[in-house]
């Protein structure tokens, strides 16, 4: 079976190379062709994705002529539905007005893209080696950014800064080895590119870089090379996108269980390079728990372990130099991951708490008893109301009557203050029987903290919010509202203090920096650990009246991060450091720690071929 796959890969690879040169012209003529081919030839992913916003081009929020919000497309549960209360929430929360629009530049102005600074001999040798490449402005711009607010904002305004000079598409490990060799030979700067969902400025081209910058897009390395059912592992090329990996494994009855919020677009290599964390880590673990073997191509050569033993005592784990290296050491090409049989039964759930304190206390107890479901998240009151605003139009009077009844029960009968109550969303997975048992255990604990079970529907909607939130940011940006999320991890005893202080710091900083409207400053606890939790913040504000909103925004985010660090939170739980947070690295890992990392970089990549300048 293994051999067969490899063979298939080889033939398909040749096909890509042969057809590649003429591909662009054909595709630009025929969109439908490009769509049908895009499954195999991902370089054209941007034909189905926005060039200046989140996600698929066909999926977006908009306010229709009646002023009602709707979500277009067919891809999501929310697609095609009307969201009647979003407008009121949006206007009420941000002081925004549908009359005041701030639309994006509709199309990329190709002439604004700086001409490529090519290393001709490098390009020649690459072509000779048969590696697919492009210097089209669209391709280069698409790979010049992640999804930080300032990156997207600039694109919407049509501002283009330094972009890669060339995009290359290796189709297998050996292609990468060749590219890296050539890059070393010709002193070219390589920036690995996976799914492009970075939120740490990791993909930004350093403006001070004078060499030719080559974006190494791993999207063609997207095959599952083999599945080992005896050891429950799968060997996968690192360019595969999360949802494709899960879907393809599901076809064989397996899953990895790794579901970061960005899994629709982020890649396996990206997860490894940033130390990603998935929603269901309570069952499956974070990326460091899932990985069995990594192969990475560096300027010094290929680094990998010699066996697939489940745990080793062979000095410091070299995987930990790779995981979190953020593309500064090399390109991850292949990964062996643990897989699990697809769970028999899944059940969502939700719990309402009278206030956030009680909710956190409950999560702490759940973590203490080590009985956390696949996922357990606690939204604060603002986020609960936000989630509520995303409720689609109810289908019948009966449902709306039921909703009213529920609300009455919780606020009047149980005495919960609607301005303080908060909601935990849950996801259980496993055998049906065990799930039900588990569910009861968690609800029993919740009851001790005043929690009331609030139904599956609320739970499911909570998780849906995760996938559409990035689309919502684009909607906000159409109406003078900008926002971002950031995260941290923190010991249990500091969770409440950190949440309160960071939220308040955001409000205060906005006020001091002249933001005219109160900001949305909200948080949720998204992961529980034995010794602490992961906390996620959303922060957005209406920037009407500000001359330089991005500058204000960046200052506030900077202040919020300082506040996090001052309150005992970490620099990042899973987003990574990139260039956005590297000023705090020394403080975070000590001078000696940073020196250690630097010396590794110095050895592995002495001429800074992987020159994205992240992390260090």
């Amino acid at each position, binding site marked *: 079976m293994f051999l067969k796959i490899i063979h298939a890969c080889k033939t398909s690879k040749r096909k890509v190379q042969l057809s590649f040169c003429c591909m662009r012209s054909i595709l630009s003529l025929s969109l439908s062709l490009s769509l049908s081919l895009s499954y195999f030839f991902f370089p054209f992913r941007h034909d189905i994705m926005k060039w200046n916003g989140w996600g698929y081009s066909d999926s977006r929020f908009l306010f229709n002529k009646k002023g009602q919000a709707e979500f277009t497309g067919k891809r999501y549960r929310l697609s095609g539905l009307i969201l009647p209360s979003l407008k009121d929430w949006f206007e009420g929360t941000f002081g925004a007005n549908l009359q005041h629009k701030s639309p994006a530049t509709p199309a990329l102005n190709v002439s604004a893209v700086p001409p490529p600074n090519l290393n001709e001999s490098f390009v020649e040798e690459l072509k000779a080696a048969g590696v697919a490449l492009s210097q089209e402005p669209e391709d280069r711009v698409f790979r010049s950014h992640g999804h930080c607010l300032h990156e997207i904002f600039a694109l919407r305004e049509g501002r283009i800064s330094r972009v890669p000079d060339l995009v290359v598409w290796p189709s297998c490990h050996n292609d990468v080895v060749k590219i890296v060799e050539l890059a070393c030979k010709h002193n070219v700067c390589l920036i690995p590119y996976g799914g492009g969902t970075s939120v740490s400025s990791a993909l930004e081209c350093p403006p001070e870089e004078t060499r030719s910058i080559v974006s190494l897009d791993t999207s063609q390395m997207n095959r599952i090379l083999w599945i080992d059912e005896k050891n429950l592992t799968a060997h996968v090329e690192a360019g595969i996108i999360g949802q494709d990996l899960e879907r393809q494994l599901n076809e064989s009855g397996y899953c990895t269980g790794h579901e970061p919020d960005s899994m629709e677009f982020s890649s396996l290599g990206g997860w490894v390079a940033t130390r990603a964390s998935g929603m269901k880590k309570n069952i499956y673990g974070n990326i460091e728990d899932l990985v069995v073997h990594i192969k990475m191509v560096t300027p010094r050569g290929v680094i990998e372990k010699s066996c697939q033993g489940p745990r080793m005592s062979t000095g410091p784990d070299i995987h930990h130099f790779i995981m979190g290296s953020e593309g500064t050491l090399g390109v991850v090409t292949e990964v062996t991951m643990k897989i699990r049989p697809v769970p028999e039964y899944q059940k969502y759930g939700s719990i309402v708490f009278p206030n956030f304190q009680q909710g956190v206390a409950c999560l702490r107890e759940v973590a203490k008893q080590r009985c956390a479901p696949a996922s357990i998240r606690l939204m604060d009151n603002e986020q609960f109301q936000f989630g509520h605003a995303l409720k689609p139009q109810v289908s019948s009077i009966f449902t709306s009557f039921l909703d009213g009844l529920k609300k009455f029960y919780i606020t009047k009968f149980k005495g919960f203050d609607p301005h303080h109550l908060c909601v935990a969303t849950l996801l259980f997975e496993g055998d049906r029987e065990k799930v039900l048992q588990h569910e009861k255990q968690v609800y029993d604990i919740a009851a001790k903290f005043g929690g009331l079970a609030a139904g599956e529907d609320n739970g499911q909607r909570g998780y849906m919010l995760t996938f559409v939130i990035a689309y919502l940011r684009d909607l906000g940006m159409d109406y003078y509202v900008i926002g971002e999320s950031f995260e941290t991890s923190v010991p249990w005893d500091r969770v409440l*203090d950190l949440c309160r202080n960071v939220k*308040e710091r955001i409000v205060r900083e906005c006020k001091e920096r002249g933001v005219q409207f109160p900001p949305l400053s909200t948080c949720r606890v998204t992961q529980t650990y034995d010794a602490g939790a992961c906390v996620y913040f959303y922060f957005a504000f209406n920037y009407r009246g500000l001359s330089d909103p991005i500058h204000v925004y960046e200052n506030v985010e900077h202040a919020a991060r300082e506040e996090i660090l001052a309150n*005992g939170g970490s620099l990042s739980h899973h987003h990574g450091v990139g260039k956005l947070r590297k000023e705090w690295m020394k403080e975070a890992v000590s001078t000696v720690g940073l020196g250690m990392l630097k010396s590794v970089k110095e050895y592995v990549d002495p001429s800074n071929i992987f020159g994205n300048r992240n992390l260090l």
Partner: protein
Amino acid sequence: RVYPALRPMTTGIGSSTPNPVLKKRDDFEDVLEERRNSSDLRYALRCYTPALYKGLVPCKASMLKSIVLQSDSLQYVVGQSREAVQEEAALLLEEMAHRLQLGTIRFFAFTLSKAFKALFRGVCVNEEGIQRLQQAIQEHPVVLLPSHRSYMDFLMMSYILYTYDLALPVIAAGMDFISMKFVGEMLRMSGAFFIRRSFGGDKLYWAVFSEYVKTMLRNGYAPIEFFLEGTRSRTGKSLTPKTGLLNIVMEPFFKGEVFDVNLVPVSISYERILEESLYARELLGVPKPKESTSGLLKARRILSEDYGSMHVYFGHPVSIRSLAQGHISRSQHNLLPRHIPQKPTADTQAFVNDTAFRLVRLQEENMVLKPWVLLATLLLQNPDGMDLSTLTEQADWLRRLALAFGAFLDWPDHEPCSKVISSSLALHKNLVCVSGGRVRLVVEELPGAESATEEAGFNRAVSVLSCASYRNQILHLFVRPALIAVAMQTANCSRKDEVFNCFNFLRNVFSNEFILCPGAAVQDFEEACYLLGKCGAVQELQQDLVMSQSGQTTLAFLCSVLDPFLQGYQVVFHTNTQKYRYVHTFTRFNVSTCVMILITAYTIKSRQTSPHSVQPLCAVFEVFSLLILSLTKSTKRSNKVPEKRTGKESDSVLWSTLKAVCVKTLVLI
């Protein structure tokens, strides 16, 4: 810059405006006015619904105790399964805790209304400050920091907060009150909690106390009120602040347990202090009468006297967060569980200390000065009395000078100067008298004067000291320019850096005498230079600081303001090095105390022989009596903990000799 080594600490308060004169102050409103026109009973029983802290964790006073006893930090100190210690902690808490009850407050509201109306012509409060406070209380936990000149202070604070429908404070009070029958409990029920004066090594006491205060702060239970100065100032000068409680209330912020804490300095100024002569006697060594209910009842005769008006100024809330910005790294607490007590780092200690000084200065700045303060200043510089006309003339000059320096002077604008002065003199008729157009200090003449010279000297000292306590109220205004004036005189050269060096030296010498923020020498120097330049006394050139032609009077006046202190100190240091080397074993303060007393006698003698080295009598008295006071204290303390002191016997011998000397000195005068 000539003096770059001394970077001032800029923390945002007081230092933001280069021109301290431009300080805008709020208007006052008399709270007694309404009391005089409507029913006190209805007032005491009215609906009281204060705005509360937005993050308030509702809890009863009794619940507070159990929260404290079960807190991690207390459990840590108590240790596991040690019931005896746990019980002791509960007892300590019982002794300490307040039992704030609205009923008691209403009782006080009624009785105090009656008392205040009898005592004061008016109680003036800045209502804008009240509004700011109301806002602050809702946003963050609030700490009220009033100045402390009288027992009346904390009663007045609660009274005013009740009047304006603000959250009632819990007040840190000395253990002395608890011994008062009935009254102690009444105070407890009106929000006072009691702390022992000293509990140096007692870890359990410290743990219980600090956790109690922090719990109230974190939960936003009530504004916490305490006196930075630690005790009532007997001299009218602000005392150097104590930082213990300030440390405690800042810790929740440093550890991230609250977002911010608002510190609100409150300046309470009295036209006539109730304890006036009591303080003077205390300074002269008569022990403080013990707080007792019977004493309180006896003191009711004061109700028949006129104490003028009083002013309560609520300053701008100072955010600890903005103060600490850039000075304190809160992440230093990241690696240790927060309930484990940690000694504050040197940085933290310095920050708290600096903040304490700044807050006391903020109190000083908003103290209202009455015309009488100016008169006392002038009269003490002319101990033999002054012609009323000269006094009027000079008072008017001093008024203008004080205003130029940014004084918060309550001088009726529409009245002629002479009228203002005569009414001031009338109010303080127990201290001054006007006879034959001459104003002089009153000294009670006793029958049988021949034999009672000692008594007469004592009485004279009392009135001079009482007078000095009013003069001292203005010192904070003049001290910095006065230091420059003296520095210019001693520097022997007009080079700015030379003058600064002298200034800095003097400033260090007086660092315990006046409120001089540590590390703010450059800032103080520049501020004082600016003031002197503004009133035309000096000219600031590129490199030099020169006296201008018209500056003579001002500079001479400023020098004479500082003179008593300067001379006193000079003599101390002189004798200390020459004669009494053996006193090294004493603490630093005591050295100066002992020696000063001897020196006083010495200076007074020399004054009689050389009339040119005239120094105001009052200064000698004052320095002198301060010393006696501290000496009394130190001997008291040494009696309590004899094992801690070495050379105890020689100490007491010295004490008795000194006592003899000072009695003699009094007789001399």
